[in-house]
């Protein structure tokens, strides 16, 4: 697979995820806001990871740099999830 085809495939995935999270955002029912919020934040941070790995070329970066980026994504997801579940 060429680089252009790979990043175009990733872009299509990003569009699909945007559409999916749009649907979750529009359809989220009363009482399920917390679950919907975690799903939406999770999808958003997975998109961030895709952008980092494939568009920013972190897949060929030194492991330390990639770990810092992936650690950031995971830490933000955990922090936002914990805040969402515990603060009310």
């Amino acid at each position: 697979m060429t680089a252009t085809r790979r990043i175009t495939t990733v872009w299509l995935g990003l569009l699909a995820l945007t559409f999916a999270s749009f649907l979750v955002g529009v359809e989220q029912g009363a009482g399920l806001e917390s679950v919907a919020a975690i799903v939406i934040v999770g999808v958003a941070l997975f998109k961030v990871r895709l952008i980092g790995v494939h568009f920013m070329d972190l897949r060929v970066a030194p492991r330390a740099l990639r770990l810092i980026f992936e650690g950031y994504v995971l830490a933000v997801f955990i922090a936002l999830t914990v805040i969402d579940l515990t603060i009310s």
Partner: protein
Amino acid sequence: MGRVIVAASLGQVAGGGAASVHSEVEVSPSMPPAGTAAAVRRRIPGEEGIWVFVLVDMTVFALFFATFMYSRGHNHQAFATDHASLSVVLGTVNTLLLLTSSLVVAIAVQHVLSGRHRHVPMLFGAALACGLGFIAVKALEWSHLLMAGKSLVGSEYFSYYFVFTGVHLLHVVLGVAVLSGLIVLSRRPTLSGRQIMICEAGGIFWHMVDLLWVVLFALFYLIR
């Protein structure tokens, strides 16, 4: 297992005037393992400085995100009411514009790295157009909100909204300036190693603008 990534930078010359040639091939397991020892040659995309800047900026935004979620937890009803005033459609349009601009920039950078930069000014130009489209949609959205009486003061939700999207908009404006510079730079018939690095670093900045928006879009437009 999976694919082996070969990324090799050739022709490093001291003094920043290198004619750098970068080739990228994704080798499937069925291909002969020629050059396996040289495979997975890791390198820092762009240069170290841009990553320091990007990671610091992303950390500041992470604090923004956490602050917003914390306040939302304490004022859930008020946030849900104000959230209903935002246009999810306009937010989605802006998301699609930035994702598409990021794709085009990533393709442009791949062309630069492989030494085929004839179409690169046009690609950076397309990304620039998407960036200008984002600014236009944001201006339209802000004007609608301001005319509806929503502003920086009066509502905690809209204070966050205008400050965070405003700071992000400054990044977009800076990114548009960077893309303009890259269009001029990539019009040269040949690019030095340093100029190739500048193209890649500029692309990384633009991708950061994109990924920050992806989270802002989720927080402000999608979750209630």
